[in-house]
Each structure stands twice: as C-alpha cells, then as structure tokens.
C-alpha cells in the first residue's frame, strides 16, 4: 500500500452562517481517478478551493499532499501559488485562459512551475536562463503539435471558438506536467461528442502519463463510467465514499439525485 497523494480530513469551509462544506475527509491514492460528485451547491468546488488554497478551512482541518519525492506538505495556510508549484494543477469551470495572450504564451505559462531560473537571470537573458527557456519552448511545441494547433499558435486565445479554447486549456495541463490534476466540471455545457473527447483526454493523462486526477462533476452517468472511487457530497456533508457501484446503490445518494432530478 503506497502512501496516498492527498489526505484530507475534517475540511469545513464556512461563509458567514453558511457551511459550504462540512467535515469532509478523503484519501486519494497516487495514480487513481477520484471523483467528487453531488448536486449543484453540494460543496464540490469549495473542497477544490480548499485544496488549492483559495479558501481557508476552519481550524482542525488538514490537507496533506505527498509529492513525487515522498515529502509531505500541509497545504492549509500555504499560499495558492506555492501549492501550484508543488505539482498541483487545476482547470476552471469557466475557462481559465488568458484571452488577450497568444496560444503560445498561454501554453508557455503552463511551464512556469518547472522553470527554476529566477527573474533576474531571465530578465538579463543569461545563457542558462535562455537554454531553459528554449527547452521549455520545445516541450510546448510538442503539445502544440499534439493538439494540432500549429496554425494558430500566434492567435489571441480569446478570438478562437469555445471548443478550441477548452482544448487549449487542457493542452496547457499537459505542458504543466502536474502530479495531481483537479478538474472542475470540465464537461459543463458540452455536447455528447465533446464530452467524449474530454473523457478520452482525461483517460490519456491519467493512464498514459500517470497523473492522479480528481474530477468534480455533477453528471452521475459520466462519473460512474470513468472514476475508480467516488466521494458523494450533499449540502456540504459527505454521504459516502466508495466504488461507483457502491455509491450508485447508496440510498442517500439515490435520494439526493432522484430527489433533485425527479422531485
């Protein structure tokens, strides 16, 4: 049994009198595809924002991340940009791109967590920094080829169609080469065909590149078909954790979903 890549316990996020999530705890095994499901407003994104350091959970919570070298880091209280640099990438429910920057710049920004040269040496264009920049550029070019986007690498991202923008955002995840990837409803508002594309992409990145994925999704059917384990939330409280089969049979999950959809 390997040490889990992420161990969260007793995560409670409160806004005024409202508990967005309440006493949530789970473990994510390295390499797995873990899903967090729940109806709208169940607190899924709050859990994600607690992991990425955007929200600060109440006292007593703990979120421990184990990096590739086996070092453990308590994420609570850490600055968001530091958490990213540990190898934790995320996508946004709405696009998290830079609309006025070129496709190339958008992808290059994904390489930053692997860039070690400081501001000064890159600012002065020192040889080592230039070499690093060129290496990064090469790996970005590989992704551009993979995404078949060579012809619009200089285009402003904001001028491209939505479907292509989503592809660029996922492509940027490839350039980031994260250890842990948090996907916040990546298929929201997409056609069945586009959903299938995204799912294929998620499989690729998880199976082929060995990236651990936490997928947030409210579409039960999608999650059931891909996730290895699922955490179900409702009104901020954890209902159950288990395999898709277990979770689908869990009476409270059935009620939360059927109640929300059918009632």
């Amino acid at each position, binding site marked *: 049994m390997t040490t889990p890549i992420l161990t969260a316990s007793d995560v409670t996020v409160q806004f005024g009198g409202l508990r967005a999530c309440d006493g949530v705890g789970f473990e994510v095994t390295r390499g797995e595809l873990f899903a967090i499901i729940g109806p709208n407003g169940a607190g899924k994104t709050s859990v994600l924002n607690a992991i990425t350091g955007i929200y600060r959970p109440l006292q007593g919570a703990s979120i421990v991340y184990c990096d590739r070298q086996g070092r453990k880091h308590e994420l609570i209280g850490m600055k*968001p*940009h530091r958490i*990213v640099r540990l190898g934790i990438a995320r996508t946004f429910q709405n696009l998290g*791109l*830079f609309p*006025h*920057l070129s496709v190339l*710049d958008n992808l290059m920004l994904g390489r930053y967590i692997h860039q070690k040269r400081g501001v000064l040496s890159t600012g002065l264009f020192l040889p080592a920094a230039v070499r690093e920049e060129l290496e990064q550029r090469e790996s970005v070019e590989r992704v551009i080829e993979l995404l078949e986007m060579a012809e619009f690498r200089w285009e402003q991202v904001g001028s491209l169609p939505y479907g292509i923008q989503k592809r660029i955002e996922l492509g940027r995840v490839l350039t980031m080469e994260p250890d842990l990837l948090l996907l916040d409803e990546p298929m929201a508002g997409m056609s069945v065909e586009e959903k299938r594309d995204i799912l294929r992409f998620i499989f690729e990145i998880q199976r082929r590149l060995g990236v651990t994925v936490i997928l947030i999704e409210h579409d039960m059917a999608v999650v059931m078909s891909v996730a290895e384990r699922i955490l179900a939330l409702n009104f901020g409280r954890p209902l159950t954790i288990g395999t898709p089969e277990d979770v689908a049979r869990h009476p409270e999950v059935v009620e939360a979903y059927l109640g929300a959809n059918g009632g």
Partner: protein
Amino acid sequence: MPLDKFLQLLLSGISLGAIYALVALGFVLVFKATSVLNFAHGSFLMLAAYLTSTLLGSLGLPFAVGLLVVALSLAVLGVVLHYTVMQWMVGKAFFSVVLVTVGMEIVIRAVILVFWGPLERGRVQGLPQGTFSVGGAVIPYVNLIILAAAGILVLAFLVFFNRSRMGLHMRAVADNLEAATAMGIDRNVVYAGAWAIGLLLAGVGGVLYAHFSPSVNLGLGVIGLRAFPAAILGGIDSVPGAIVGGMIVALVENIGAGYLGAQWRDVIAFGIMFLVLLWRPSGLFGTKELIRV
C-alpha cells in the same frame, strides 16, 4: 518666418513627447498589472528631478551615472512601496486605493519640501549644452540626447514586456489574475515588479525633464500627471497607446502653447483629456469596455 517657428515647436515637442511617453508608459503599466490608478505618479517624476538636481547639479556626477542611480533608486522605491503599503491595499475598493496614492503624493511633496526647501532650482546642465540648426530651427543637443535616451528605454521596455518571462507574467496577471495564480505565479512579485518598472520609467522621465525644463520646482508634479491625458488619449490599458498618446499630447501642447502663450500649456494638455473622455472614452487603442474588479 512662421514656418521656422512651427518647425522649432514641432522638434522640441518631439523631445518633450518622448519624456511624456516614458512617464505615461510607467503609469499605464502600474494600472494594467496592479489595477491601481496612481495619482502619485507625477510626484515620483518630481522626486527624480530633485534627485537629479542634487546628484548631477550639486555633486557633479556624470550624466550616465546619475541616470543609473536615480533610475535604480526609484525602482527600489517601487518595490519597497509595494511591500510596505500597496500590498495591503490589494483587493480593497478601487476608490480607497486611489485615495492612498493621493496621500502618497502629498507625502512625497512634503519630503521634497523638507529636504530641498521651497525655492526652485535651476535647470540641470549635465549634458552638452550647444545647439545646432535644422532648416531655421535651433535645436539644443540636450533635446537630441533626451529623445535618444527615452527612445532606447521605450524599446527596452517593449522587449522586456513582450519577450521576458516577467513581462509575460505581468501580461498574464493583467489578463486573468485567477488563472495566473493557477499557473503558480506569485502576484505580489508581479505587482512589485510593475511598481519598480513603473517608477523607474517615471524616474528616467524626471532625470530627462530636469535637463529640459527651465527649472526644477514643486510644479513638476503636473508634468508627471501628463501621464493622465497621454494614457487616456492612448487608451488607459494600452502600452502602445501610452507611447503614441504621450507623443501626441506633447506635440499639440507644445505647438499650441507656442502660438497661444505658455499659460495655455496645462489647459491644452488636460483639454485633450476632456475631449477624449467625452467622445471616445476608451482612447485610441484601449479596451472598449474596461471593467476592473
């Protein structure tokens, strides 16, 4: 001959425009990267001009050394300013942040008064003083050097902003702060960098203006605030707009004041600003609907 006069005003206006472009560029950079509308920008130019009059005028340092010292001092001041004051204003209401910069302006003015006193100081003469004539217009060498120095710095800035990693990070933070954080960018480093570069540009503007203006005095802050009409004409979030806007404001102002009288200088510059705000609030190159949160 009237054409000689026009040429004279045009050519000296170009040098002035180069200074305005620098100053507006610094102002726009700070606004773009940190969303702060910096009302103290003019007083940084003034501070730099006073430093210049001491370092180059009284102490007699060579021009290049003085320029470097003032530019770096202002850049360091920018970093210090961010980490001591502006950092705590991040995310506060736009209006509160503006008021902090207004307060900053008052403090700098007071500091100048304390250290340099209320009397105006003469024009700094750290550059070769001769003149040459072009088609009937008499041009001081100083103007030529100012134009060259400002031009080089503007180009250097453009390379930095469009090609360097820090420049990329500034553009990223300006475009989508949330996404920039998700890329692992520390916004405080970017903000401090923007303040440093912004004040450096105002600082160099101050050094050059101290060689251009007949005197160094407490009215120089208004020259720094030319960044407002220049930036608004160019489009307040546009880097090329700041350069073009600075040049146009200086030319119109210089030529207009040459014919109407020097007392019209400020009226013309800020008159341009009013007209732009009335007819084309986004300026020549600005984002059409600018919403800042």
